[in-house]
C-alpha cells in the first residue's frame, strides 16, 4: 500500500532524520519527497510504500515523534488523495 506522509511544524535539526529512520526500521520505502520551508514553517510531503509495515504501528510511532518534536504528522493511504482530487 502506498501512503502519503505530511510533516508540518517549526523547522529544527533532525526532522527528516527521525522520520526516515523510523521508515527504515519498518521496511518502508520512500518513493518521493518534496519539502519546503515557508517563514520558518517546515512542510514535508513524502510518498512511501508500506510493504509489510502496519499502519497502526507506524501511526503510533509517528505520533510519538510528532509530540517530541512538536510537529503535526499524518500518514494517509494514497487512495484517499486520489479519490478526493481526481475523477
Amino acid at each position, binding site marked *: 500500500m502506498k501512503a502519503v506522509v*505530511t510533516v508540518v511544524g517549526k523547522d529544527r535539526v533532525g526532522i527528516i532524520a527521525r522520520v526516515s529512520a523510523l521508515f527504515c526500521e519498518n521496511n518502508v520505502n520512500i518513493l518521493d519527497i518534496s519539502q519546503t520551508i515557508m517563514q520558518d514553517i517546515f512542510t514535508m510531503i513524502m510518498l512511501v510504500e508500506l510493504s509489510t509495515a502496519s*499502519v497502526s504501528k507506524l501511526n503510533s510511532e509517528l505520533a510519538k515523534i510528532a509530540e517530541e518534536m512538536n510537529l503535526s504528522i499524518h500518514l494517509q493511504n*494514497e487512495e484517499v*488523495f486520489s479519490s478526493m*482530487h481526481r475523477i
Partner: protein
Amino acid sequence: MINPFEIIETINMIDKENLDIRTITMGISLKSCVDPDVDKACEKIYNKITAYAKDLVRVGEEIEEQYGIPIINKRISVTPVSCIIEALEEPSIEKCLKVAKTLDAAAKAVRVNFIGGYSALVHKGCTPGEKLLIESIPEVLANTEIVCSSVNVGTTKAGINMDAVAEMGRVIKKAAELTKETGGFACAKLVVFCNAVEDNPFMAGAFLGEAKAIA
C-alpha cells in the same frame, strides 16, 4: 504525484474540519424470518442479524485504519418489521415487544450504534399487523435502546392516511410520556414519513426496501 496543495487541503479537512464517513449501514432482509410462532421468529431474526452483521463493525474499523478516516457510525437497517408482526399467531403488544427486544439484543451483540426498521408503510391503509405495530411503538421505544422506528403515512400518489396521522399523534405523545425521565428520548428514535424512500439509510427512519434483493 498529487500536488502538495491538494495534499495539504485534504489533510486540513481531516485534521481541522472533521472530514469523516458519517455512517455505514448494512441492509438485512427479515423476510426469511417470518414465522407464526413468536419465539421461532425471534430466534430466526437474532440468528440472521448476528450471522450477517458479525463482521460489520470489525471490517468498518479495518477500513478506518487502512484509510485513516474515521467512520463514526455503523448501523443496520431491516425490512419493515410489520412483515414479521403480520404473520404472528394471535399477535399482541407483548409479542411486538419481544420482537423489538430481539432486534435490540442482536444489534448490541454485533456492536452497531442503531438498528432501523421497526416500521410500517401505511399510506394506503393499515393491515391489522401494521395497526398493532403502530400501537406498540411507544412501549417498544421506551423498552429498547437502539431500535429505531418509522411509519410512512402518506405519498404524493396515494394521498395521506389521516387515520394513521391521528394515531401517530397519539403514539408520539405516549412515547414522550413513557420516557419523560430522559427528555422524551423515545421520540428521537421515531420518524413519521410522507414519501418515505426505500432503502433509506438515515436513522431514525432507516429501513430496507421491499425491492432490494440483498442479504
